[in-house]
């Protein structure tokens, strides 16, 4: 039971630290990266590059493991079908990301940086998630 909490807690804490150091919790930094046709700020390309590089290595290690270190087995997505829902949802997400310069991870991390603003964003995001759940009739 303890390991079910400890591993995600460690992961989340390192994740939040990385988001903050990398500038993802600064909306001006994020919107600067998305301002490709204006005053472009390439910082986030380094964030994404560093993260993807480390994770690519982790996937190599994962393929050699029978099971994860602290769980019974791997629970990984295995779909490969590209659907209108995937594309439409991702398109929407990009619009929301561009408007305020926040995505879900930095939204939660920013609760420790600008609690008022972050709480408004997170509450609205959860409401959006709830809306999808209700539309799908699984409320």
């Amino acid at each position, binding site marked *: 039971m303890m390991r079910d909490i400890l591993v995600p807690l460690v992961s989340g804490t390192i994740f939040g630290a990385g*988001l*903050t150091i990398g500038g993802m919790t600064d909306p001006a930094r994020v919107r600067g990266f*998305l301002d490709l046709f204006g005053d472009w700020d390439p910082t986030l390309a380094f964030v994404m590059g560093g*993260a993807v590089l*480390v994770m690519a290595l982790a996937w190599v290690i994962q393929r050699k493991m029978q099971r994860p270190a602290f769980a019974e087995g791997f629970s990984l997505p295995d779909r490969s079908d590209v659907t209108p829902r*995937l594309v439409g949802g991702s*398109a*929407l997400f990009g619009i929301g*990301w561009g408007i305020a310069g926040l995505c879900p991870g930095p939204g939660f991390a920013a609760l420790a940086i600008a609690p008022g603003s972050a709480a408004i964003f997170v509450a609205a995001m959860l409401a959006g998630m709830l809306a999808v759940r209700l539309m799908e009739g699984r409320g």
Partner: protein
Amino acid sequence: MTLPGFPEAAPLPGLIGGVLIGLAAAVMLLGAGRIAGVSGIAARAFGLADSSMPRAGAWAFVIGLPLGAWVVTDQTGSSAPDFASPVLLVIAGLIVGIGTRLGSGCTSGHGVCGMSRLSQRSLVAVATFMVTGFATVAAMNALGIEVLG
């Protein structure tokens, strides 16, 4: 360290932050056998998604995010950056919430975890939200909509 032509860029903090994010996702993958996708885990924590992930673990991950941010700001003592107005935060939050559920992921799940394993769905998702993100900022700039003070 500065980047020639981009005086405002911070490539080194960006790279360090990125490596930490990758390590965090690696801990989740190799430790718990799961994808460190923030939107999916948050939805699980708040009871808005069906998932096999233990709910207590989902909460632990979500709580870790501000905890890690707090540790960094506490050490560096940096001042809080500007955020969008409450109205824009509500609009953006709603769209992000709906979009990430329909699209099965965000910058972490599709961007960091999916792209690094060359998932076809994630590559399409990332290309899509990058394009609409670029277009949104370009459109708002063209319309003269100021977001940050």
